[in-house]
């Protein structure tokens, strides 16, 4: 039954395809590392090139898939080094990745995240190889009601992040949800909060939101420091550059758990790396944050989202290859690329196009190894980026991001919006808000609303639909548990272990 895979390795190991896989991995890492160019745009830019060069379908797909998986690797770099997420899946990576860099552990952080990315992707690719057809059937059973319950679970898990200031976390998440309501209402087509500006009809672009919130506000903070002649939050000198084996082993369960979470969420059509990494991070915090150090540079807090976002990238190939339904925004574009080649991805593809499917899956294995080999030594190089003064580094990255965003919108409005959001982000940070809940509220809130309304349109307004399937009931129970258990656990601990409190 694995004939297609053997055939696939035959295809993927030809010099041309190996070269393309490497090129894809390299370009993808760069696209991911630059905020503003995510995998979607990277692929959209290179898709016509691959076609114009006259590459055969499997080679083009190998190149584009390399870019996709590579950018999930690359997205972590600016998250860790600059506190600016490189793409959607890398938002959670900032939470512990950047504090690690501040401690002088940028090199090990980059190395560890490369290893967890590798493991996450590998687990997911094996899952893809073994269970794709089976999973696809389960994935479509996941309907609006189940998605809504999943979002509730994700929000409930966020309560784990409410560490020192629960009210501010809550406010931040609600602000994010509020921002997600801008634009055409997805059910009725009514315009909401658009103030007659057509630029706002489609809602606020995720990239605009991220660059504004993280990069622009960072520049504003630096400006403020410069004005006041403050000592800027200096980076610790760069210590060792390689990650230690003991650190990887410390994270092994975090990585494996998150890989599975990421893969499962990636398989579901309609959710991608951002949801996967958020759920993985918050779950991991619940499970293994014993000393409340998540958010201050805990290695597990870094490994979890990185394993998950790479796993979800591979997972999103499952519905694409088996059902012809994109599992993420990026695979939607890959579907379009296949159509340029007269290949209709879907249920028949494994039988009709074994070379393409096998070649793609084999190249995912190979590309993933390449990415690890590429990224481990790069960790040392990129860690040194921090020796460039921040006043030069952050604006340079911001300029690149601005150019990228302008190219995608051909409209200054996007830039203005980004600046406005930047000022907003600056104020939030001055008032001691964490930005991650805002972004999560923004991403999850939109999905939650859409799916709630879909579920209610299906049932004709009967809320019973939300509790009908075993899947959704399970998610509701899980959501309740993640909120309730810590509350009671705290009390129980206080009651039976008074010593624990004192320590």
């Amino acid at each position, binding site marked *: 039954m694995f004939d297609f895979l053997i055939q696939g390795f035959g295809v993927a190991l030809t010099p041309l395809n190996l070269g393309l896989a490497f090129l894809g991995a390299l370009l993808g890492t760069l696209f991911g590392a630059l905020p503003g160019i995510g995998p*979607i745009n990277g692929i959209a830019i290179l898709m016509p090139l691959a076609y114009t060069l006259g590459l055969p379908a499997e080679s083009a797909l190998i190149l584009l898939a390399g870019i996709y998986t590579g950018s999930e690797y690359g997205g972590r770099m600016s998250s860790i080094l600059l506190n600016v997420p490189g793409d959607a899946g890398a938002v959670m990576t900032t939470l512990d990745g950047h504090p690690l860099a501040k401690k002088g552990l940028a090199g090990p952080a980059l190395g560890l995240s490369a290893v967890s990315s590798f493991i996450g992707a590998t687990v997911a690719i094996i899952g893809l190889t073994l269970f794709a057809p089976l999973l696809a059937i389960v994935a479509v059973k996941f309907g609006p009601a189940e998605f809504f319950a999943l979002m509730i679970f994700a929000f409930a898990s966020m309560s784990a992040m409410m560490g020192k200031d629960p009210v501010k976390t809550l406010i931040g998440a609600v602000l994010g949800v509020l921002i997600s309501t801008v634009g055409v209402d997805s059910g009725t087509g009514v315009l909401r909060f658009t103030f007659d500006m057509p630029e706002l009809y489609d809602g606020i672009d995720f990239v605009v939101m991220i660059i504004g919130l993280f990069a622009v506000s960072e520049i504003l903070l630096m400006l403020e420091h410069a004005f006041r002649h403050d000592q800027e939050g200096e980076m610790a000198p760069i210590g060792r550059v390689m990650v230690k084996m003991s650190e990887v082993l410390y994270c092994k369960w975090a990585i494996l758990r998150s890989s599975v979470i990421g893969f499962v969420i990636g398989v579901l059509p309609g959710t991608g790396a951002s949801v996967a990494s958020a759920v993985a991070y918050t779950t991991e915090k619940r499970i293994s944050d014993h000393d409340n150090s998540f958010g201050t540079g805990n290695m597990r807090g870094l490994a979890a989202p990185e394993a998950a976002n790479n796993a979800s990238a591979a997972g999103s190939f499952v519905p694409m290859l088996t059902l*012809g*339904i994109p599992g993420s925004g990026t695979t939607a574009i890959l579907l379009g690329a296949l159509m340029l080649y007269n290949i209709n991805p879907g249920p028949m593809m494994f039988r009709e196009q074994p070379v393409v499917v096998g070649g793609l899956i084999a190249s995912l294995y190979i590309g993933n190894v390449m990415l690890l080999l590429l990224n481990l030594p790069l960790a040392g190089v990129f860690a040194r980026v921090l020796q460039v003064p921040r006043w030069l580094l952050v604006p*340079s990255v911001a300029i690149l991001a601005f150019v990228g965003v302008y190219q995608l919108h051909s409209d200054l409005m996007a830039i203005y919006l980004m600046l406005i959001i930047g000022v907003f982000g600056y104020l939030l940070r001055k008032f001691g808000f964490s930005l991650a809940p805002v972004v999560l509220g923004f991403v999850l809130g939109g999905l939650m609303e859409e799916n709630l309304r879909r579920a209610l349109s299906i049932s004709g307004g009967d809320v019973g639909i939300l509790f009908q399937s075993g899947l959704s009931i399970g998610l509701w129970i899980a959501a309740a548990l993640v909120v309730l258990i810590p509350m009671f656990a705290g009390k129980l601990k206080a009651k039976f272990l008074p010593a624990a409190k004192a320590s």
Partner: protein
Amino acid sequence: MPNSRFLSRWLVAAVTGGALLAGAVQAQAKPPECIAPAKPGGGYDLTCRLAANGLQDAKLIDEPMMVSYMPGGIGAVAYNHVTGVRDDDPNLIVAASTGAALNLALGKFGLKHKVDDVRWLGALGVDYGAIVVRKDAPWNNLDELMKALKQDPSGVVIGAGGTVGSQDWMKAALMAKAADVDPRKLRYVSFEGGGESLAALLGEHIQVFTGDLAELKPQLDSGEIRILAALSEERMGGPYADIPTAKEQGYDVEWPIWRGYYMGPNVSDEAYQQWADRLRELNDTESFKELREGRGLFPMSKFGDDFHQYVKQQVADFQQLSKEVGLTR
């Protein structure tokens, strides 16, 4: 520190390189350009690529056509831009579809924008709406589905990839109207695009999907779905030959989804004519026929003034229809 110097140099080079690259895009002596009024990767992107790849393969343009993106307002931002800023650019075409005509008819591009504000150039292909059910659905033909709808309009869950008032909704609404059912009584669920709707159909969350014919080919081949009716004028050939039209089953509903282009209002007649001729010529080449088939589009030959009148008529029809289905007054 030698490393740091190496790195700053490297970084400066990267930044200038990036800036130059961006500058180069701006500074080039006007190559032909196609604006896709959406984010990369969507239907409009593919519409632009259809022209860009086709024209280049057929050597009908000297320089490669640039595709740029202008998302926003389901196409309104680009419409604004072309009617206001680049209104006389002879090298610029903008991708459009039936959806743009519908939005114009519903006033979603802003009430000041009319169909005559741009010059409609031509269409390179067309797809048709389709009424789709799962393979195990209780209805064997359109008539049975329509009778079920008549009996209980909210008893059938219909879903598709657009909001109320979108193309996909219009297909459902027109069907309802043909069965004398009030479209507002339908149980309609909007998803994000055809892919999600199809997943919902296969996962038994919705019962009927009002999709597009050609995008369903893979699932049709595998027997996962049945297409009860094609919303085309007459039966399509090839793999679709067995699918009856709605019309031949007694329900007069048609929904063509053309893929075409428009230009700015003040483009010279000469430039407009030249582009129309180019598209017409492209449409007749053998290599383009393959390209079009690959994109899952059926032929449609309307160019220049012919096409302009077609779109104008369509917008007028849509305005009438939207009143009939209770969308506007």
